[in-house]
């Protein structure tokens, strides 16, 4: 056996180990798009909660909102944003898997990845609802950031290990927000929009 063959063989071993334990079809571009969705959602949320649509003189006069309706509209924005993010990530991962000559399907790895992603998120979501109902509204944005960060750290075993750095960054932003207590909207935009866009660009450049 020659040296080149040995190097090829070791590369084959490494690739097989990686592809049998990790999903490598997450796309950096999806991070950028998710970041843009978050920015749009935050702008809509800001407009709604600051009464942009309450003034009957505006173009939206037919949409005059009262306080109770505002909350409903905010919830709808949140659900639409989450659904759009999930759909985009799945669609772009499928496309990338296809380009790599693989297929994205449910197997032991993708199930573990989904489990370790959604478990902390579910706990975080319940906590956020409880905090909100008990009147600790300021704590909701930092908790969203912290639990989302924990999810990202958790999935880093099953995909690009860099995703844990994005997780650490989200957790840091969340903790600072919890300490400061106010300006949840700004921290939310920094965490869910800017960090995603920065990470997306980094991932695209690195894994091109």
């Amino acid at each position, binding site marked *: *056996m020659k040296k080149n063959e040995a190097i090829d063989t070791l590369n*084959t*071993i490494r690739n*097989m*180990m990686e592809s049998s334990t990790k999903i490598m079809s997450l796309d950096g571009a999806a991070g950028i798009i998710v970041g843009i969705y978050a920015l749009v959602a935050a702008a809509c949320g800001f407009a709604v909660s600051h009464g942009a649509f309450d003034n009957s003189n505006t173009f939206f006069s037919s949409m005059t909102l009262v306080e109770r309706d505002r909350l409903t509209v905010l919830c709808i924005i949140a659900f639409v944003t989450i659904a759009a993010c999930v759909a985009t990530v799945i669609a772009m991962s499928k496309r990338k898997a296809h380009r790599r000559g693989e297929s994205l399907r449910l*197997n*032991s790895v993708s199930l573990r990845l989904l489990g370790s992603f959604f478990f902390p998120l579910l706990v975080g979501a319940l906590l956020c609802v409880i905090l909100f109902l008990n009147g600790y509204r300021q704590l909701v944005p930092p908790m969203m950031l912290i639990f989302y960060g924990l999810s990202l750290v958790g999935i880093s075993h099953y995909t690009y290990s860099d995703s844990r750095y994005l997780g650490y960054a989200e957790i840091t932003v969340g903790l600072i927000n919890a300490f400061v207590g106010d300006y949840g909207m700004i921290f939310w935009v920094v965490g869910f929009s800017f960090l995603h866009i920065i990470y997306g660009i980094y991932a695209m450049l690195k894994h091109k």
Partner: protein
Amino acid sequence: MKSLLDNINKAFENKSRLGIMSILSVNDSVSFVRLKELLGLSDGNLASHIRSLEEAGYLTTQKQFIGRRPNTSFSITEKGRKAFEEHIAALEALIRMS
């Protein structure tokens, strides 16, 4: 004197068998279907490679039913792990030498 290079294992010279061992070395247990998908082999081909590795004592088979469907999965044995690690160490030695 027995050199490190003697550890280059004939059983792993075949690319498919090397793939099977690589996958099993980092997973607790892998199903037949998943191995087939990862390696892109036919049923018969994969079965024959698995049989030869099993005869060498490098992997064990677990047969069970998931619902009504039979499901066969495989795990690496201690002996298999040791042989595979020695094989990798021998390859690395070969690269360093030349």
